[in-house]
């Protein structure tokens, strides 16, 4: 129970929408959302297919707790083959769209084929249809949202869509839902646009029931909420400062990647931090942050609702950006700020707005601009490439120009939209791309937080902080403190985080709960809602099965153990300042043990024994 047991299969080539029962054997092995959708993807596509061709499929999947009152139970993920990495993509989003989809009676939607003309999918409970999208094709996510709400005359409808960047083939385009929440990474929006699918609008009024043991479920989720409320991170830090609570903390420990990861501390961090977002500005006396906001069912509410200073050069002549919208999260503030050397809070907020408006992943976008800035400062790119713009580290003007170019893929924007790996390869300096498997790093330098180096190198979707967030242990001491500069024991730590995260994602919950919740807190919530045994031990097993399945897909897609590495800059160039001064990331001392713990050969391939242990498909 808790699943709706119904999935919607949309064949875009044929223009059909057909309901089919959920495969409950797979649900029992993979739980839901990330895990379960990956199982469908593995079954249905050739791992070697062209990610942007009709043979790729795109799955929007909820979890069993999506749409329930469990705190943060509103999440969905988009699972497909990534055009950025060539491996599996799985991008998780909050907001309200996922819960609405579940409330309309669907566990997931599988999109297959490619539409001959631009369409959007409209869902009203059991009724689903493909509609002509000529009116919204060529429009931003924000305009698309507005047009669809007006057209359907339903203010309570939820929309997930792609912007102009995706239509133009930007390789790191997101799917944006509820205006400023996104399935952000790995180019899932690019895949959606390649299928001529502009948007999904959904209205669900059926609700979510089918809870196995309602009384125990309500008790479990109440206990869970209490734990979140009483925890310093989830009860105080995140509501007050958002994920931006980390900016000054990470900078102090010397793990703040700066100027395309050339340095590990940013002198301007305090100007773009969560604390800075609370400071009244000179022009109107208002702070950047208006208030915090929650996603569906979330009792943490780390979301930022912000404005840009109307006097700031980026919006002075553009009143359409004077209102509130989604403000800076830590990863965006880092990528757009520290990594480009820009310490202008209003500029970062504006650029973040544009990333939401036209659907670009702000991490990859910011890191790609950072790589372009290094190329520019090295004289590889010149003003002849940029149309006269001085693309230098620290230039807020250049950053704002870059996002406007990228949003519509004009001029140098088309180069930026390749992502940093292809951009740096194009200009003959591949070593300047700070990526793993073609995806850019997030905001933790692995020279200062060693475990993250291993987590990045082995992440199934390329460099990513949400696949094994050992920062929790290495910096924040959750569940227990480990030394960020040590490598001993990190292989086991990374594996444990990766497996637990896969299970939490697959339930439909937010990973931020794990600052306070262990699997002992999460297990009763799933177990009381869903048929079957969902003990903490079983969740670890399911999490590991998901990890192995994703890895197996990647190997079949052509990735190898050789891709489990980091750029030379992080392996050979020592950190220049802070507690990690003189350190490189010692990946080589962690990776062999990690392979062993995973049950892989020394070259990173799954052994027959491992495949059989987890019952992986052939």
């Amino acid at each position, binding site marked *: 129970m808790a699943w709706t047991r119904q999935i919607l299969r949309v064949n875009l080539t044929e223009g059909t929408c057909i309901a089919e029962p959920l495969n409950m054997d797979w649900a029992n092995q993979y739980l839901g959302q990330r895990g379960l959708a990956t199982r469908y993807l593995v079954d249905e596509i050739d791992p070697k297919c062209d990610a942007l061709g009709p043979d790729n499929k795109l799955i929007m999947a909820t979890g069993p707790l999506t749409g*329930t009152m469990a705190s943060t139970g509103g999440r969905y993920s988009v699972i497909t083959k990534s055009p950025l990495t060539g491996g599996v993509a799985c991008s998780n989003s909050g907001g309200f769209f996922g819960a609405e989809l579940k409330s309309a009676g669907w566990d997931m939607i599988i999109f297959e084929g490619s539409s001959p003309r631009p369409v959007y999918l409209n869902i009203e409970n059991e009724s689903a249809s493909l509609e002509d999208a000529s009116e919204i094709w060529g429009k931003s996510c924000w305009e698309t949202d507005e047009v669809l709400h007006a057209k359907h005359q339903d203010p309570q409808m939820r929309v997930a869509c792609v912007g102009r960047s995706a239509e133009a083939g930007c390789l790191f385009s997101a799917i944006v839902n509820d205006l400023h929440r996104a399935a952000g990474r790995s180019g899932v929006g690019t895949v959606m646009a390649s299928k001529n699918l502009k948007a999904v609008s959904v209205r669900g009024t059926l*609700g979510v029931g089918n809870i196995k043991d309602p009384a125990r479920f309500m008790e479990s989720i109440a206990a869970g909420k209490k734990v979140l409320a009483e925890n310093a991170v989830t009860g105080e830090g995140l509501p007050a400062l958002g994920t931006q609570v980390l900016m000054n903390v990470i900078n102090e420990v010397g793990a703040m990647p700066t100027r395309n990861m050339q340095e590990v501390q940013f002198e301007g961090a305090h100007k773009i931090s969560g604390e800075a977002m609370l400071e009244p500005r000179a022009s109107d006396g208002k702070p950047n942050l208006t*208030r915090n*906001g929650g996603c569906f*069912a979330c009792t943490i*509410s780390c979301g930022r609702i912000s*404005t840009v200073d109307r006097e700031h050069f980026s919006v002075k002549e553009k009143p359409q950006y004077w209102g509130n919208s989604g403000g800076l999260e830590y990863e965006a503030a880092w990528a757009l700020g520290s990594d480009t050397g820009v310490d202008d809070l209003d500029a970062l907020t504006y650029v973040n707005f544009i990333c939401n408006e036209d659907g670009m992943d702000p991490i990859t976008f910011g890191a790609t601009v950072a790589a372009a800035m290094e190329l520019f400062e090295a004289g590889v790119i010149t003003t002849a490439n940029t149309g006269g713009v001085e693309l230098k580290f620290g230039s807020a003007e250049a950053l704002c120009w870059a996002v406007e170019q990228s949003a519509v893929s004009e001029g140098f924007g088309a180069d930026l939209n390749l992502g940093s790996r292809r951009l740096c390869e194009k200009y003959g300096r591949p070593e300047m791309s700070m990526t793993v498997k073609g995806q850019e790093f997030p905001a933790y330098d692995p020279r200062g937080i060693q475990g993250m180096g291993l987590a990045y190198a082995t992440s199934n979707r390329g460099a990513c902080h949400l696949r094994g967030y050992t920062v929790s242990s290495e910096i924040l001491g959750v569940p227990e403190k480990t030394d960020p500069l040590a490598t001993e024991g990190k292989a086991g730590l990374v594996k444990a985080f990766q497996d637990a995260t896969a299970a939490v994602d697959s339930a439909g919950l937010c990973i931020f709960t794990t600052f306070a919740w262990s699997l002992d807190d999460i297990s009763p919530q799933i177990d009381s809602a869903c048929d079957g045994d969902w003990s903490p031990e079983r969740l670890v097993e399911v999490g590991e099965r998901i990890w192995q399945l994703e890895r197996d897909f990647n190997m079949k897609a052509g990735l190898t153990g050789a891709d489990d590495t980091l750029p030379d800059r992080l392996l050979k160039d020592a950190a220049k300042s802070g507690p990690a001064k003189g350190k490189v990331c010692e990946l080589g001392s962690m990776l062999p043990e990690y392979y062993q713990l995973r049950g892989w050969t020394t070259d990173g391939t799954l052994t027959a024994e491992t495949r059989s242990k987890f019952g992986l498909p052939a």
Partner: protein
Amino acid sequence: MQKSLNIDPGKCTGCLQCEMACSLENEGVFNTSKSRIKVFTFHEEGKFVPYTCTQCDEAWCMHACPVDAIVVNAVTGSKDVISDLCVGCKVCTIACPFGTVNYNADSGKVVKCDLCGGDPQCVSACPTNAITYVDANATGLDKMRQWAEKTDNTVGG
């Protein structure tokens, strides 16, 4: 002591826990579309506002009902819809100046907040105390306290 719902929009984060608690209590499912309390998001302004029936003393809905299907709950003071009597004419939905009485097409009856019989579930579900259930004669007490706190009582202040 009669109590009433007291809503402080400044504390609301828009998470919809209240809507789910309401629908669970009244419909047996998590279904925000069936909630008697609604949270409105004003995106540009950056605010969230929960809104529901204020249980008017001279309730327009009650006076408008032609079949006397809306009655005063003597214990809580809420104006309750007697479903068995309601004929679904919707006159009360027109009479209510605030829009907080609504028709449910599935049941053919109107629905409105009844304070869950004195234990409003939205209140216990709200994680930020944006919705509280307080002495009906002193709903302004919190606001008064906040202003009082700002009073400068230092000598010569």
